[in-house]
């Protein structure tokens, strides 16, 4: 992903849909977090890693100014 200096990416969110951000009531993954500040690498963890489960999810990336993209 690329962004102009003044309009950076501002949020990463997980969703179970790839058109809007939607979260099931429970039993899902957390929003992505950067592995270390400034690394540009993000990781997604389950809300509860004590249960056996499969999570199908998308990531919404939003930039300053309103542009959005969803992972496919």
């Amino acid at each position, binding site marked *: 992903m*690329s962004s102009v200096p003044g*309009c950076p990416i501002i949020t990463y969110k997980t969703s179970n849909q790839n058109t809007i951000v939607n979260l099931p009531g429970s039993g899902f993954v957390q929003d992505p977090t950067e592995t270390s500040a400034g690394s540009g690498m993000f990781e997604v963890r389950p809300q509860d890693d004590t249960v056996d489960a499969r999570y199908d999810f998308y990531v919404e990336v939003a930039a*300053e*100014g*309103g*542009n959005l*993209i969803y992972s*496919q």
Partner: protein
Amino acid sequence: MTLIVGCTNDLTMTDAGTYSLSETLYVNDPVANIYTFVPPTITPTPPSYCPYYFTLVNLQLNGGVAVGNEIGFSSGCAGSPGCATLDLASSAVKEVLTFNIRATIGTSNQILDSSLITVNVVSCLDLNTINNGAGLVALTVWQIKNSDPDFPVDAFTNTDPRCPITSIEIFSDDTGTGTSPPSSMYPASIAVPNAAFNVYSSVQAVEFDYVFYIKVTGTENQVYWAELASSRIFTLRVVCGPLSTVLTEGSFSGGLTTVQYIDKMVGGAF
């Protein structure tokens, strides 16, 4: 039988009545040949040794005493007794001159004064008003893209066509002593001051409010600071918009794929 010797009262003059009683000039207008008088008719036609000539009488400046050299016959009139074209000494300041033109025939005591003639030098500072264009706005919001942020300005207008706008400048304040153009903005002055124009920021991709003032100068250095709703501040607001950032999905690295496995209770992550 009658023998008339020299110039006598047998020659009579009649006012032509077709000359202009007022002439209006603007400050700094050319001063040569600003008025031409229509001479009276003389009957019978005077002999060549009785030429008529003109003098200015009752000259007043702004309703008071005149020095006398404020207006006079054009240099081209020298040696032409019937010439009645006038030059103004100066049009640098506004003034009102009133006078009569006196016609005299030769050496006779025949004189005829014209009606009172007024020469009015007027100033754009009194007559002209500079106005905003109808489309002028105080704030333009620009969404960042691959071109310089742009604040369009509608053309300024003025009420007197004899007093055109001569320059437009962009300042960082409204004292006229601030930076021109303001930092990261251009141009400092507008090439065609009587047309619509644009003010730009040279920084494309940073959110910022560029504040500037517009100084419009007219004839005779008439200054108008553009103003809307009692404010002289104009703002070019550069913001991020939906098209400012190009987002594309990247690819996984390090052998990772869209399906990943982690064990329970070890702090693993996708």
